[in-house]
């Protein structure tokens, strides 16, 4: 369900979201209940159901090994090839097989994983023009397409392929030259664990990391891998360096975000790493693919030689969990049935055809919540829905008009009435998960920004009268809001906003819906901004606070995901770039957080978009499943639940045949 442009890393991947609310979500979050400091993760918001959920009290002494976990997933696995798939459901299956150099807990803290340790060795205060002398010139074809097959790592910032016949670019071979001369932004060194085996028996070495990075070149996720990564270089058999192009506050998370391939599969053509192409995925992960029926089901069984089992979880130096915590996941096989219809998935769960399901309708969740035979694991995700105003079309280029409409967005009603409390109103622009890096003071930020986002019809009328007098507007204004069909909750939310706007008597609102693929094609077209429509869509952010402003507002993302209405504010662009790529922000977290605070305030004033709410990632399970806690990202929902020593997380099955 969730599709689209991803980043290389599951930790930073960006997805357009077809569904809303609890359905089909990718994101990131704070935690709830338990040892989370007691605020329940709902931010003290009375509307959120998160406050009513408790995480399970787990005693690993009761753990039972073996059994088959039956999962109901929401969409087909489009591809098992990590760099050649961008949808959350494909990644959900891939992460059982493939692993990365580092892993993350649910608050975004990083832990070495395939790497035993890593360190940041050097930061140099350079910008992308520093690569000028290494760049080669390539011709440009029609519509500015570059005439080369090589991965463009850096394009000279002063060149514009649309206006010139040739541009200067840095490709992988020249990137290596630059590094030889000591020209790079950042250097990270990873020490790999020795003795990790791929499913085929090959041992993991630094060469695998280098080959994997090469396979990410010109892949479906290359644009979002090589916005940060400059080069991967093996130092010795178990040591590998990853270089960033410029100082980058997100480099530590972004650079190692590749799923490490075996040597043989690193040589496969793009998209060929898939059972439909005769290549079962081979990784270092805890499970191997046993069967896959396109569009129907897939089945995994435990890999007998999983490295954590071999070495023991105690061999991981940062592990501080209980002594009974298992060495690897304990569930023997995983059967995933692909059931796209939410109601059918719910019925399958009630008929005991599956043990756990995600992406159910919010009204159904309430019923599971009230039933003792089932449990819901949920956490605030980074997924959010937003409206974007046609800022380049009069009179919507006046920020007061946009601020007024924002006051007519009933965020509390959206969460409590449309989503039944399975979300949190977006009083600020960032969810729990991005708060760590995205603000210096959460409460101060909310105090400052929330007044802009309150449902306030009086304030809206004042603004509308003011802007109407100044511009000589004839109310009611006609405006069309567009949204994708087949996302009931989102459409209902738009109906509610439209009704709220109409009740003000300043607007006549029409709603137009489009089938998902047609809609994404429509709104990602650079000419869409000329139509003068308000576009509504869902997007998933990450631990990186940038994912809650950049994708929506940076001029680089016009015609891409997801600056739909052509916002082009150079001041804002600079602010966003400085919060991530400026050396001060890289070296001092506080500086970075303060810069983001400035951005949130600036955005509240400019009001290019209205973020309505932050969704939850949830899973509903029967009483057989013990110990399930939800990860904020849909793609790692099961991977995290099955085995995550960074949070002492493992599930097992409590049933007789299990």
């Amino acid at each position, binding site marked *: 369900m969730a599709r689209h442009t991803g980043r290389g890393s599951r930790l930073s991947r960006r997805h357009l979201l077809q569904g809303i609310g609890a359905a089909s979500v990718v994101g990131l979050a704070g935690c709830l209940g338990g040892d989370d400091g007691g605020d329940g993760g709902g931010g003290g918001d009375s509307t959120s159901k998160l406050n009513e959920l408790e995480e399970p009290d787990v005693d690993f002494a009761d753990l039972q090994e073996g059994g088959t976990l039956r999962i109901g997933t929401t969409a087909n696995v489009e591809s098992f090839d990590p760099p050649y798939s961008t949808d959350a459901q494909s990644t959900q299956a891939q992460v059982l097989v493939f692993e990365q150099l580092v892993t993350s807990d649910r608050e975004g803290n990083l832990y070495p994983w395939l790497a035993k340790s890593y360190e940041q060795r050097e930061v140099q205060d350079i910008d992308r023009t520093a690569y000028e002398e290494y760049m080669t010139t390539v011709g440009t074809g029609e519509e500015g397409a570059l005439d080369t097959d090589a991965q463009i790592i850096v394009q000279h910032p002063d060149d514009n392929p649309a206006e010139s016949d040739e541009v200067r670019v840095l490709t992988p071979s020249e990137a290596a030259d630059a590094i030889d001369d000591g020209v790079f932004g950042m250097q990270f060194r990873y020490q790999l664990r020795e003795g990790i085996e791929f499913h085929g028996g090959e041992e993991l070495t630094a060469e695998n990391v280098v080959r994997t990075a090469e396979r990410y070149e010109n892949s479906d996720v290359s644009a979002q891998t090589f916005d940060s990564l400059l080069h991967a270089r093996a130092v010795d058999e178990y040591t590998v360096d990853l270089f960033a192009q410029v100082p980058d506050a997100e480099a530590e998370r972004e650079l190692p975000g590749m799923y490490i391939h075996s040597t043989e599969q690193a040589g496969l053509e793009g998209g060929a790493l898939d059972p439909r192409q005769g290549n079962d995925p081979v990784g270092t992960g805890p499970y191997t693919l046993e069967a896959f029926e396109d569009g129907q089901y897939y089945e995994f069984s435990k890999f007998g030689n999983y490295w954590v089992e071999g070495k023991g979880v105690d061999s991981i130096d940062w592990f501080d969990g209980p002594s009974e915590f298992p060495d690897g996941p304990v569930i023997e096989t995983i059967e995933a049935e692909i059931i796209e219809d939410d109601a059918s998935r719910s*019925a399958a769960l*009630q008929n005991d055809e599956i043990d756990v399901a995600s992406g159910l309708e919010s009204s159904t969740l309430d019923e599971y919540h009230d*039933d003792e035979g089932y449990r819901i694991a949920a956490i605030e995700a980074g997924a959010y829905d937003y409206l974007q105003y046609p800022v380049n079309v009069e009179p919507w280029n006046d920020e007061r008009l946009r601020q007024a409409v924002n006051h007519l967005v009933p965020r509390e009603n959206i969460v409590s009435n449309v989503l039944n409390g399975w979300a949190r109103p977006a009083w600020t622009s960032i969810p729990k998960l991005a708060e760590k890096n995205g603000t210096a003071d959460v409460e101060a930020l909310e105090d400052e920004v929330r007044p802009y986002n309150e449902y306030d019809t009086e304030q809206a009328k004042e603004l509308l009268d003011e802007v109407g007098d100044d511009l000589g507007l004839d109310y009611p204004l006609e405006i069309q809001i567009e949204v994708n069909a087949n996302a009931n909750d989102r459409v*209902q939310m738009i109906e509610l906003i439209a*009704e709220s706007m109409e009740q003000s008597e300043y607007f006549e609102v029409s709603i137009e*819906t489009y089938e998902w693929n047609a809609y994404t094609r429509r709104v990602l077209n650079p000419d869409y901004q000329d139509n003068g429509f308000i576009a509504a869509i869902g997007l998933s952010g990450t631990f990186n606070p940038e994912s809650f402003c950049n994708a929506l507002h940076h001029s680089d993302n016009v015609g891409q995901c997801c600056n739909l209405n052509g916002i082009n504010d150079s001041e804002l662009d600079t602010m966003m770039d400085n919060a991530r790529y400026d050396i001060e922000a890289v070296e001092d977290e506080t500086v970075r957080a303060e810069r983001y605070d400035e951005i949130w305030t600036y955005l509240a004033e400019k009001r290019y978009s209205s973020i309505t709410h932050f969704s939850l990632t949830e899973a509903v399970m029967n009483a057989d499943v013990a110990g399930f806690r939800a990860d904020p990202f849909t793609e790692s929902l099961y991977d995290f639940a099955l085995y995550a020593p960074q949070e002492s997380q493992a599930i097992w099955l409590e049933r007789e045949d299990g």
Partner: protein
Amino acid sequence: MSTERGRIRITGFDADRVESRDPLSDWAEHSAVETQSRWRRGWERFKRNRSAMVGVAVVLVLSIAALLARPITVAGFPIQPLALAPHEPSTILYLQDPSVGVYDPPSLSHPMGIDGSGRDLFSRILYGGRYSLSIGFVVVALTASFGTVYGAVSGYYGGWVDEIMMRIVDTIYAFPGLVLALIIVTILGGGYWQLVLAFSLFGWASYGRLVRGEVLSIKENEYVMAAKALGARDWSVILKHIIPNAIPPLLVVASLNIGTVVIGVAALGFLGLGMPPGTAEWGTMLDATRETLIPGPEGRIPWWATVYPGLAIFLFVMAMNMIGDGINDALDAQATGMDDQGGA
């Protein structure tokens, strides 16, 4: 040359005797009664048909309710000031009154309950008739008119004209009507006139074929021959002599077809392809509650959200079918394709 040549002489005819003899029949000028037209006779029979009259009553009630549901203004002038429905069909009640919840069951203040978006179902059902009913009548008016002319031309001229025109009809018949409508709505997008077009563009074919059959038999009648012999033009023969005589079976099919179109519009609405979401069209309302049909554990289905729109569709289509049957009986129309009833 004889002057008698060329004259006809009648002999042996006694006019006086004919005038004075007893009349051969009972007919006399003073005993003549006005001939009862087929329409009047039909109406008399129709009035006696109870089920048909119940149908008429239901359709009338639904239509008047739809008309009076909310005030109608044209260009700012109110032309219908009454409001039977307590709320606008789009009004989301919880925005003003937080005590109203999503899917509240029927109560005194909301006799049909609240829908999944917090709107008053009673108001929406009443108002929804404006879409469902009017589309039915508009589509049938358009398709029946076109189909009649098409069929009449085809049947009257015969030969290769008939051959070509009927093959076109056959081609249309090769596709299920709902699938064609679905394709059109997918291409054009949802909306009132898009739906009208979707059902009209190919919906005339059944009328074309029916009228052509009628014309084939009517045109052999002597009065048609006579009209032709008197030098009437083709168009005048078709319009004055043929079409009026093909109307009775057409009426039956048309009345039944209104139901079919309403079901079709509701079906597209249920598939999410009809009117924009949130519209009070009955099928679209059903679609909005679809996910509640498989509830969670211990969950209850908010029956009012599906039953009332479904009942409205059922009542109207049933009523139209009863009217169609009534017309069929009243006009003695035969072979009218009764298998084409609404809902089929």
